[in-house]
């Protein structure tokens, strides 16, 4: 048991967790935060060295919360998600010193066999490809029932009943329950995958670009479904997307990643209206109107660094318009502001040198940032 004073003070934490149909894992600390990721470093081994795909990422996910993960393609979003349940490609390693605590249980030291207990029952994932995430030779209904039967030990009959309930929940008519994946449309398939992700009533659902492959109208429907399920079931959601408007519409907090590190993280209302990190500002600048324009993020000039040999100091330095001498030498520490926003950028550390390394120091935005956030400076970029 950890000190209750250290635990998440949110009042609704207990009710959400109390909605669970299944017991918490035995070692779970009921007062611990739902998910606490600290200094996650996931690297891929290549002949030429290690690709530092995720390099020191920390974040929390509270009960019932939706966290949106954004950043250009290749910045480590998927790797972060796969690290949670260790479904990495064979050359992927979670390095020493990383910790992923679920109900206070660190998943990193778990063996593959031990980890199976947490997959799907605690953390399930909706993958990007609705086309390929379902097994083409097994009926959709049976794929949904499978974890209920195998993981929760339920009978054939009751697991099938649960599958039909879930299909109903995500809006797939029961007459389609016999279908094979290829017999369903892309949107239907993604609904079925969502139903499958809910099968064991997990604590956390991760959506890795769950709507990217779908056309705009179906995208909207799927997001609406996720929203509704989150409200009805009290899901805790980690939503990965490179579409910032999706995060603005559906998430409580946003985590902006750049080149394997957290650039900025905080409440959506703050991050999207008063972006502090130059990268976040660029991202938002690529979205003149978050709600209507769905341009992709590729419009930022330059490209992300090679993660085999990332630049020393700030990884955004080669593309940053505010770059300072210190930026290419010292890795910017993460600074947390009063409004709950966390930023890793030297623009905010130079003001209070002594704050470097501290995660809780409050720093007011400097003049440079204030200017950076203004529309005029964006236009000149």
């Amino acid at each position: 048991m950890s000190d209750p004073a250290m635990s998440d003070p949110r009042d609704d934490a207990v009710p959400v967790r109390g909605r669970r149909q299944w017991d918490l894992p035995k070692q779970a600390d009921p007062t611990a935060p739902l998910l606490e990721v600290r200094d996650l470093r996931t690297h891929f081994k290549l002949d030429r060295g290690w690709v530092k795909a995720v390099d020191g990422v920390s974040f929390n996910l509270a009960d019932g919360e939706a966290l949106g993960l954004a950043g250009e393609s290749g910045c480590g979003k998927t790797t972060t998600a796969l690290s949670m349940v260790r479904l990495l490609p064979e050359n992927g390693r979670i390095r020493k010193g990383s910790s992923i605590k679920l109900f206070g249980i660190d998943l990193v030291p778990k063996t593959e066999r031990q980890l199976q207990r947490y997959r799907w029952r605690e953390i399930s994932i909706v993958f990007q490809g609705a086309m390929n995430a379902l097994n083409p030779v097994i009926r959709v209904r049976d794929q949904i029932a499978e974890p209920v039967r195998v993981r929760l030990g339920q009978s054939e009959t009751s697991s099938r009943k649960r599958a039909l309930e879930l299909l109903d929940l995500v809006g797939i008519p029961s007459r389609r329950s016999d279908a094979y994946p290829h017999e369903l449309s892309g949107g239907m398939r993604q609904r079925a995958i969502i139903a499958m992700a809910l099968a064991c009533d997990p604590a956390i659902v991760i959506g890795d670009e769950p709507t990217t492959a779908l056309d705009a109208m179906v995208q909207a429907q799927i997001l609406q479904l996720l929203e509704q399920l989150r409200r009805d079931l009290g899901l805790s959601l980690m939503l990965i997307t490179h579409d910032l408007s999706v995060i603005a519409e559906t998430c409580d907090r946003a985590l902006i990643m750049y080149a394997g590190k957290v650039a900025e993280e905080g409440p959506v209302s703050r991050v999207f209206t008063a972006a502090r990190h130059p990268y976040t500002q660029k991202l938002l600048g690529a979205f003149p109107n978050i709600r209507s324009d769905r341009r992709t993020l590729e419009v930022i000039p330059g490209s992300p660094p090679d993660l085999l040999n990332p630049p020393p100091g700030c990884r955004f330095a080669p593309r940053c318009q505010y770059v300072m001498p210190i930026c290419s030498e010292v890795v910017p520490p993460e600074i947390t502001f009063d409004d709950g926003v966390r930023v890793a950028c030297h623009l905010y550390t130079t003001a209070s040198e002594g704050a470097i390394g501290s995660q809780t120091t409050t720093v007011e935005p400097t003049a440079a940032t204030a200017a950076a956030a203004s529309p005029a400076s964006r236009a000149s970029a």
Partner: protein
Amino acid sequence: MSGHFLGRKLGQAAVTIVAIVLLNFVLFRLMPGSPDRILLRNPNATPEAIAAIRERWGLDKPLFPDQLVDYIAATARFDLGDSFKFRGQTVGDVILDRVGPTVLLVGLGELISVIVGLAIGAYAGWKRGGVVDRVGSSVSLVLYSMPYFVIGMPLIVILAAGLGWFPTSGMQDVGAETGFVGGLVDLARHLALPLLTVSLGLIGQYSILMRSAIIETRSEDYITTARAKGLPDGRVLRRHAFPNALLPMVTLIAINFGYVIAGAITAEIVFSWPGLGTLTITALSARDYPVLQGIFLLVAISVVIANLLADLVYGVLDPRVRV
């Protein structure tokens, strides 16, 4: 599986068989050494005798349409003519005598190789780089690359001639034990080495193909999904990866069936197994064209049927082709 799918596949098979029958006709009439000359084997034959023979075999009529029509009509009646070599026997009789041993050898060999080869290949590919993979893959590659007589010869030299555990040739001992069980044991002892020869080569081939099919399947998204579900590794392999990796194998095994028969022919010769393989050699050296023609037709049709079966099995295994 819909009737439409079944009908289409049956139609394709029928068209192929018609094509084979036509090819058979053309092929054996283009061959050097016309049948009449071989039939007579007598340089001093009188023109009258030759004419009589030609009339007897219908060779005096024009190739098209008369000979072709006669040929097709006869084939449709399963009348493949008389053997040159085995006087007094029809081609049908000669082949029928020898079909059993070959079916036994090829059938059992296919069965064993499919089961063992797919199992080894699936496991090796799943645990890529593991012990089974490293040992299995190199052994498989060696076996795959060896012609059947190279596999068969050492087996004869060591296990049959050397250790005397198995007979070196034939299908039955002369004056073999009587009785059903005794006969079966005798047959099994004779069958063991040719069967092993055929199976070893095929196991090597199937396990190599299955290994790469599994490796390809392993990186599919639905396998990641299955693992994300927290299913035990063995279940992910058996329930999710194997059935999908099996799909390309069904086609490969069917396409390969002609080569299996060709391989069995070699193995039969090595072990003097009294099947179609040894018959082919006999017929070849005697220029027994009707018998060769019959064997060719039979083998070709069985390959077509194997492919038809593969299509049907595929249709059962893969819901996507049932439409």
